[in-house]
């Protein structure tokens, strides 16, 4: 047995006796064998893992041309929620958009104009018109998408993949972010308030 394994040296020995060098070699062969098995397993695991990640995606569009700022009134506008899954919000200083994906587990919150709140039907998260968390289990503020002006025709372009996600740590709850932290380019467009609008009647949008 040992002669077959070692090949040379103790051809004449019929007993299963192994010299120290034999033992070392067997140990090495064993380790090498398991090494090959391990490398093969690791390689195929990695290949399987890689296989599950498609490098090409066919997903709904994420860039929308939403017209001019003047087409939107003060407050939350829901006209793009169906098509683009975002709200357009215009306040006294300008315009921004918020992605209508709940930061908790991805449901679409509903806007309640009477309560001035976004409320999620899945686990009861509540956001205010700025996207700050006012209740429920949501861990972060609503995302704001990129909003820019088309250089050719001046229309507003929203990109829902480029998202603003400031770290909320400005309240004891750690869930509110000051408006001026969020009203930065390219997630906000400065614009004069619509004619006749006053700060006194729109406290929240001021």
């Amino acid at each position, binding site marked *: 047995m040992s002669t077959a394994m070692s090949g040379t040296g103790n051809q004449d020995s019929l007993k299963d006796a192994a010299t120290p060098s034999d033992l070392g070699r067997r140990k090495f062969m064993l380790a090498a064998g398991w090494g090959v098995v391990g490398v093969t397993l690791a390689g195929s695991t990695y290949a399987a893992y890689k296989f599950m990640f498609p490098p090409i995606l066919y997903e709904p569009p994420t860039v929308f041309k939403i017209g001019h700022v003047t087409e939107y009134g003060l407050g939350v506008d829901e006209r793009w929620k169906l098509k683009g899954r975002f709200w357009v919000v215009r306040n006294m200083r300008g315009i921004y958009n918020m992605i209508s994906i709940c930061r908790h587990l991805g449901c679409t919150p509903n806007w309640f104009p009477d309560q001035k709140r976004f409320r999620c*039907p899945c686990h009861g998260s509540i956001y205010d018109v700025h996207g700050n968390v006012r209740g429920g*289990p949501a861990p972060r503020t609503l995302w704001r998408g990129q909003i820019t002006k088309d250089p050719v025709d001046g229309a507003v372009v929203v990109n829902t993949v480029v998202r603003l996600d400031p770290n909320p740590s400005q309240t004891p709850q750690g869930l509110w972010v000051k408006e001026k932290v969020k009203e930065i380019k390219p997630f906000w467009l400065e614009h004069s308030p619509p004619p006749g609008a006053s700060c006194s009647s729109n406290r929240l949008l001021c």
Partner: protein
Amino acid sequence: MENKVTREIFPRDARKSYGLVELMKGSNPIVKKEPEDTVYTWPNLIMIELICALLVTAGLIILVQFVHAPLRSLADPSTTPNPMRAPWYFLGLQELLVYFDPWYAGVVLPGMIIVGLMTFPYVDTNPKGVGYYTFSERKFAIFNYSFGFALWWVTIVIGTYLRGLDWQWYWPWSDHLVHMNPALVTLVPLHIVFVNLLHVSKDVGKALCDLLFFAYFAVGMAIPYFLMRKFYDAMGGARYVVFMIFFLSMMGVGLKIVLRLLFNIKYIVVTPWINV
């Protein structure tokens, strides 16, 4: 052997290579069974199983005459049905997600429940109560099982009957078609309560919370060790630690739900990375 019929007539013994064979008159092949107490599987047991299967089939066919599998409108990412209820067996999970952050309620806790269930046979050292229904011989084990699943069923009942539009709390007598105003109370982390009550700084409040959290586990671990030595000795160190971690976590989940519902506590422990 004549006067005492044990359940196992010929006890198996790993150290013996021989077996006891009995020759007797009759037409039945019998192995390791009392001769007079056995019946043929076919047709006796097979018929029971067949009847069972037929009853289940009949029951299901009758059931689907009255209730049908639901089919809502086509999937639409822009609108979530309100309220969005998970299937009943996941309602417990959905309800837990209200009380805990998703990494805990959605991932760690279900994982712990699964692993905790798997550890049952390894931490239950009570040799009694095998093969028959008993409560008196296994009070603690049955209490644990019932408590865990009571939590599960209670959250299912809450999710089914006490949650309505916007996943708000609706009593059975409140109008389930009217959107309730969100509660005016704000959920606060525990350390803010300390800051307000004890007039300490925020960091001290946080340290108190951390202390409380670890004290819960430490005291919980210690009490049976010192006061119920028999319990500890029966289990041994490793089993004891594994069991107590799961037991205290389960109790902690119940405790946190009570704290949330009664005192509007959002988190016990707040760290920059995780909140519990």
